[in-house]
């Protein structure tokens, strides 16, 4: 007698037995609800803070919130789309992702791209929408590098490290031409995180860091950086001297967070925020609004929520059923860790000022969508950890 396995056994095996048919493509019970709840909370707070910081910038107080909301819808759509596709399929898209990221970053430097604030970094679309390829480049580079590293599991020798670094150097170089130092630092963090987890020997990493240091020194001393970038980077070392110039952002930023005290001035009631004393507050300095209006209680809660997201991402990297899953989650983990630490650290004066958005909080559609893409990958790995 031929035993035909029950139909259900052909389906993905899960902790809960057979998965019910789902439009998600995975059993909804297998999703990491702890992380998703934290993400939802952070995103909601982000929306409130975008409103708080941007309502006086233009005539329509909801202008920025509406645009951020639209991006959020797109981001959630991208999240769901990525979730439906088994993450292992992304291995097949490595080369495609790499070609895409290089093409996008190259294209933005051509007349197809447009420039603003001294950087050639955007694609402009009708209706005033803009797309910043450097943000999605984070996601694409993760897909591309993880695929390559996965193929060479166990033979991360100097040659392989060189290849991986070289692969990363191309998009990094293109981003530097925009220029966008902040994104490059994030890309570098992804690279380092990936190599660290993938098993590159400690000394390779040291060599890599030396190379990076040499590179930064070259970039600074050869004049590849604009003076304002150098000023912003060095301000953190002598904040008082430059409080009126390059350090203005940071001194205002620190003071605004400090003004919040323990419980803050109340949502939408921060005087510094209301009166626009912190430049770029709805984007890179949005944490200052949290600090001023919600105080230590609110800011620490936000940090804790970020901590939960980080923890769940790290946990997913450990729980992943295969090496590729671990690599993807590690890369995302490194990206989040760097962005959060650098961004919040910068607002509090312990890190140099660079243009890095705070994930899920900062105003900026491209960043929000890219973040949701990355979260989609992690959730994907988590949901399929048994299958």
């Amino acid at each position: 007698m031929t035993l035909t396995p029950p139909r259900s056994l052909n389906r993905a095996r899960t902790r809960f037995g057979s998965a019910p048919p789902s439009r998600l493509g995975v059993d909804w019970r297998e999703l990491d609800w702890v992380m998703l709840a934290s993400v939802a909370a952070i995103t909601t707070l982000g929306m409130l803070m975008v409103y708080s910081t941007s309502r006086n910038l233009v005539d329509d107080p909801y202008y920025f919130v509406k645009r951020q909301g639209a991006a959020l819808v797109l981001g959630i759509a991208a999240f769901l789309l990525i979730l439906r596709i088994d993450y292992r399929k992304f291995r097949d898209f490595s080369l495609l992702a790499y070609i895409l990221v290089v093409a996008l970053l190259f294209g933005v430097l051509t007349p197809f791209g447009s420039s603003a604030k001294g950087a050639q970094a955007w694609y402009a679309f009708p209706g005033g929408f803009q797309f910043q390829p450097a943000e999605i480049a984070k996601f694409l580079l993760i897909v591309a590098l993880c695929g390559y590293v996965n193929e060479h599991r166990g033979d991360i020798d100097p040659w392989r490290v060189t290849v991986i670094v070289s692969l990363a150097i191309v998009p990094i170089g293109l981003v530097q031409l925009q220029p966008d130092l902040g994104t490059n630092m994030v890309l570098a963090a992804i690279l380092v995180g990936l190599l660290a987890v993938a098993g590159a020997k400690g000394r390779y990493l040291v060599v890599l860091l030396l190379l990076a240091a040499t590179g930064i020194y070259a970039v600074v001393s050869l004049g590849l950086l604009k003076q304002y970038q150098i000023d912003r980077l060095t301000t953190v070392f002598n904040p008082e001297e430059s409080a009126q110039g390059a350090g203005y952002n940071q001194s205002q930023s620190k003071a605004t967070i400090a003004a919040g005290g323990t419980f803050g001035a109340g949502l939408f009631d921060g005087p510094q925020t209301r009166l626009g004393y912190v430049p770029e507050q709805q984007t890179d300095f949005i944490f200052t609004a949290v600090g001023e209006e919600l105080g230590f209680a609110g800011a620490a809660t936000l940090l804790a929520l970020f901590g939960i997201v980080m923890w769940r991402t790290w946990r997913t990297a450990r729980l992943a059923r295969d090496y590729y899953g671990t690599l993807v989650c590690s890369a995302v983990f490194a990206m989040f860790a760097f962005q959060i630490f650098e961004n919040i650290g910068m607002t509090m004066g312990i890190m140099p000022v660079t243009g890095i958005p705070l994930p899920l909080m900062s105003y900026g559609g491209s960043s929000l969508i890219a973040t949701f893409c990355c979260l989609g990958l992690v959730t994907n790995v988590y949901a399929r950890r048994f299958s």
Partner: protein
Amino acid sequence: MTDANSRVRLTVVGVVVFALFGALFARLWFLQVGNSTSYAAQTEQSRIRTIREPAIRGAIVDRNGQVMVQNTLTDTITVDRNITEEERAITVRNLADLLGKDAKQIDTELDNPGYSVYEPVPVAKDATFETLVYLREHPELFPGVSADRRSVREYPERLTFDDRPPVGAHLVGYVGSINKSEYKIQRRAGYSQIDLIGKDGIEQLFESELRGKPRERKLEVDSRGRLVGQAEVVAPEAGHDVELTIDLDVQRVAEESLRQGMDQARNYFDRLTGERYKATGGAVVVIDAQNGDVVALASAPTFNIANFTNGIPIQDFNLLTDPANNLPLIDRAVQGLYAPGSTFKPFSLYSALRDKPQVPDPENPDQMKDFDESFTFYDRGFIEFGASGQEQTFQNAGKQPNGIVDITKAMTVSSDVFWYNIGLLYWRTWGRGEPAQSSTNLADPQYGMQRTARAFGFARPTGIGLQGEARGRIPDLTFKREVNAGNPDGSSQVWLPGDGMNLAVGQGDVLVTPLQLASAYGALANGGTIYTPRLAKRVLEGGSTLGEPRVVRELPVQPAREVALDQSVVDKIFPGLEGVICSTEGTANAAFDGYECGSVMGKTGTAEISAGKQDTALFVGVMPARVDPEKPQPQYVVAVVVEQGGFGGSVAAPIARRVFDALRGDPNPPPVKTYRPNID
């Protein structure tokens, strides 16, 4: 799943990131909870601008409620600095043309950092009607310019001479922009760097009462400096009015009389220098000896405090502090130091009658007896003493002999020789010690005159409260040794007979202020009470002096000390002082022509000054000489000093007489009538 190696690496990365998050928490705690206040203050400082508008300053009225200083509105042209650079250039250029000012100067005024950016800056005060009309008709030429009415000081009572200066310039003082050192002292009292502050006189002394509380607005501005709201308002409180002890009519008469007397003194020739008297300055002090109230306080030359109301130009201010103009800013009544000359004689006579130095007994030529009222002396016009062949000579001011004088006649005719002899008697009785034994102890009997002078308030400030009050000086051996420190001449280190003789006639190193002189005569006349001079009687609610005065507080009469007066001794001195006025031989008899005997007593003085200066003319009078405690009434002391004015009897006494005329109820007495300088 992953291999063990990857797990370890993942753990390491996790720990690193966990540590980084820990750092973020720690930093957040430090910023918001640990160190919150200083940063919070920093944000408020950049966000909140405080604007103060001065309250209405209190009025100053005399003892009868007559207004001496009040406020009036003046049209001030201001410029709002929230205009563009181009607009500012237009405004500055056109304002310079319109006001006849230097464009650079206007630019500098506009940049005055003392004003808040949100406050219009005044560039011209007291604008004329034509200017205002022109501004109204050509607003396009003056972007940001507007006119508002501001409150400034006004002085309704003016003197008749020169440019009609307000009455009591030195007394009232003036108001001006706070300077750096004042700001340092006063910033805690809520002053800002553009505030006005009382600079002198009553305006300074009662600054805290007159000023009131400024209106305070806290403006909240956004990051681009736009006004977004008023965060807080402190309501203004009008300054208090101050009711003085001054009698405005007497004050005015005192200043006019001083001026008249000085003008006339300049017509007389000084026989010693062969020039006309210069009469470079003078003072009149009128106090009530019964309570220390200051009735008038005049100093000449005076100046026009009205010129200060809109800010005095620096070159005009410099004229006021120029010695060539006799330093009009100096309040000679309290800051001037003069040798009292013969006006000091009552105090040295009081000393002698109390201390009783030894004199030869006329009935028993070999015996000595106590100095008393029976002592007579033959005034030959000079006195000599010292070893034969080395005699020193002291002589009367006019060298004229007065014949035999007793204490009363000596006072009446002002026999210097009689007082020189008193100084000599002190030395002969107690001061024969060798240099080594010469004592600086003031309790030493030979320093009886110094003790008396100090008891009457000389050589110490009266405490009137006006700035720069001088201390004065009564010379003693300590002083003499300080002056002659290092002088090998032994005679410079001991108290010599000549020192005491000079002191007895109020010459040499004796220095007093006119106020001290009046106060000392007051104590002599009132039975020995030294009062701290009182300038104001009451502090009243702002504006209430015009209707029913509402008292904020009373300023009490302040008896400072008692001189342990021997009234029997005083009674022996008074006849001589009355004789000065009443006797036909009296040095002030002519000046007080028409006054009944006994109504006024007084003493003239003509002090010789070294350094080639002409004599100082002095007179101190008291009216009435005695007050019956059963029937209290004011007892006015009038002290007059005229620098380089000649003789006390011919210049100072006539000035005092006109002031007494006013005190007796005549608000417009006949002009001062001085005499040729031939009486001391």
